[in-house]
């Protein structure tokens, strides 16, 4: 129970469904800098108290479990090192993969629980083969199946999403109000939870320092200087501060970050388009395809709320390769590609490489 409205209503529905429910709040931070309130390097006290009030209201026991060390090692440090490697990670996904449905689930199972129930918007259905499948939520705008794409078949057996089939977030808020839960109108959280001011670049500068380097075009011509490469993201246009305009007069965008040479590569908008994605860190969500090395039609989604794009996918030499039917703009290595067949989440991979729609000579 995060202290938000979704997990509170999920808990309420789980109680109503007759389960023996225990509320658990994860203490994820010990870094004083991430406190919104409170003292002594603990978690966010306000959220913990909100979760506790909801648990009290539902008449269920409530505990705070400390996963701060694990969270730092598996999520925060991973986030930093991914940026250091010039990639753009998704920490919420890592948290689901390594904390909520790994460390927490493991602890829960060892303490005698059957499942981890969360307030995610996604649906678990039983497929034709009798195996569990993860599907998109009906509340399409809130659908969170993307960040759950890391769940394995075994983890799906112990996952429970009571609000996953809800029509909308408004319904959940209304239900929370009807149930007398004080978090009914609590604002949604958007930011990365361990970056207190919501300023990722500032936070990264603080952690990594900033080393000035070159801004180059794809042919290697030096166009200017940057104050620190992790201040840039693929697709970024503003803040490049290159004095000279491009030869064709068109605006330039960040195409690539090269951590080894500390270079930021820029180029025309067209060059942001990629036609192929591939990654070797892959997992199947539920049962794996029977013949993954044979090309099959799917859809791929590269951000939590991006539109899916049709593609042909196959596992080639241990890499999940996705050939896109139409180009995608500004996809960065480090992002997670989740592949869907219809509403079903089939699997995911962390993108290692992309193929640009525009050859370098262009």
């Amino acid at each position, binding site marked *: 129970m995060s202290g938000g409205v979704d997990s509170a209503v999920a808990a309420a529905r789980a109680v109503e469904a007759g389960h023996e429910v225990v509320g658990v709040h994860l*203490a994820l931070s010990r870094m004083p800098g991430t406190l919104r309130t409170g003292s002594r390097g*603990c*978690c966010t006290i306000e959220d913990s108290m909100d979760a506790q009030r909801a648990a009290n209201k539902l008449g269920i026991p409530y*505990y*705070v479990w400390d996963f701060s060390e694990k969270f730092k090692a598996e999520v925060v440090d991973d986030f930093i090192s991914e940026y250091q490697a010039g990639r753009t990670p998704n920490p919420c996904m890592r948290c689901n993969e390594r904390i909520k449905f790994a460390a927490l689930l493991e602890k829960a199972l060892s303490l005698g629980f059957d499942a981890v129930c969360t307030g995610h918007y996604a649906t678990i259905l039983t497929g034709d083969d009798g195996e569990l499948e993860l599907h998109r939520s009906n509340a399409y705008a809130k659908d969170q199946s993307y960040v759950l794409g890391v769940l394995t078949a075994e983890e799906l057996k112990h996952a429970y999403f009571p609000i996953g089939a809800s029509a909308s977030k408004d319904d959940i808020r209304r239900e929370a109000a009807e149930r007398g839960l004080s978090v009914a109108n609590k604002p949604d959280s958007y930011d990365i939870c361990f970056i207190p001011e919501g300023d990722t670049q500032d936070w990264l500068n603080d952690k990594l320092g900033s080393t000035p380097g070159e801004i180059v075009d794809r042919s290697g011509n030096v166009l200017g200087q940057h104050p620190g490469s992790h201040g840039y993201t693929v697709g970024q246009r503003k803040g490049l501060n290159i004095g000279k305009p491009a030869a064709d007069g068109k605006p330039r965008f960040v195409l690539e970050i090269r951590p080894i040479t500390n270079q930021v590569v820029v180029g025309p908008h067209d060059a942001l388009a990629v036609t192929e994605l591939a990654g070797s860190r892959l997992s199947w969500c539920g049962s794996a395809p029977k013949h993954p090395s044979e090309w099959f039609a799917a859809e791929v989604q590269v951000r939590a709320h991006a539109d899916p794009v049709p593609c042909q996918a196959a596992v080639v030499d241990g890499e999940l390769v996705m050939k896109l039917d139409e180009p995608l703009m500004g996809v960065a290595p480090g992002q997670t590609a989740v592949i869907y067949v219809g509403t079903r989440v089939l699997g995911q991979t962390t993108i290692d490489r992309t193929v640009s729609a525009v050859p370098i000579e262009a």
Partner: protein
Amino acid sequence: MAIYLDYAATVPMPAEVLAAYSNALAVEGNPSSIHSFGQAARQMVEEAREEIALALNADRNEVIFTSGGTEANNLAIKGLFWERNSEATRKKIVSAYTEHHAVIDTIEWLEQHEGAEAIWIPVSEHGEVDFDWFRNYLNEHGDEVALVSLMMANNETGMITELEKYSSLARDFGIPIHSDAVAAFGYLPIDFGKMKLSTMAISAHKVGGPVGVGALLVSRATKITSLQQGGGQERGIRAGTLNAAGVSAFAFAANRTLKNMDQHNAHTAKLLAQIQQSVAAAIPGSRFSRGDEPGLSHTAHFTFDGAKSDSMLFLLDQAQIAASAGSACQAGVARPSHVLIAMGRTEAEANGTLRLTLGDATTQADIDQLLQVLPGIVATARA
């Protein structure tokens, strides 16, 4: 029916204390008022003061009522520090890191805001404060020390400090010594005068009185600077309308506890011995935290190698047994015990603590029940 084994956190108010408290709450008037109502309330306060003074072999004028143990510790440490630095410069505060946060955090606040310098005396693996080190330190730096603060008994491990040894020495150097006696009060005979203490903090709810009431004993010879200004109550040391009913219930509860102390200690000592023996026999990798040091007979504090406190507390709670890990942060996370860290244990060891504290109402059946489930719980919490 749930079994309550967390008496060190708070002692459930006995029915007769509750009755005395509600009678006291019916008394109208502000003790500072001149009229008959005020005088009735004042009488109640002063009777309470006398009873508490008598119980501690102190003078009635030495009892300053506060809102609890934390305030009493703050008042003593800040009050002594400021008083001692008003004319001469004595910036050092000598204490130990096994103290309660009400002491440690107050000293660290003085370091951050008032230029104090904390001197933490090393402690042994069982929590004993190193006396030779203390003596050597005072020999070298005695004239720079504002005050010494050492607790009478540790709230986590229950270890008892032989306080007179330290207080006599501090007195020889003319250094005031404060003692946090919150955990000890009600469980040990305390002679405030004989112990040569300058100040001493006690709390009502640890002896079955109401929460939000406590006292600081300030010896006649000791001067302290007050922390709050207002109506000049409590000899100007602690301004604020006196909590007449609260202090009355405090005195009633304290007397009741002290009257039964020997009998109560014998009762808990017997149960504690069973817990210690059973844990030693049935749970490998367990350790009784204070070793063979003298300790409070109602406090059983263990570390279990490889077990996590939060899992043990959860499983005990599910088994209807209320216990503690020693300390938790505001958000409710069991923290690695700073006391055990100070005693030289690793963070992993300090994460595997369990504190069971017994009381009057603890029965043999409660302990039988505990000892039946505990080995399994520790095993699960190690998984």
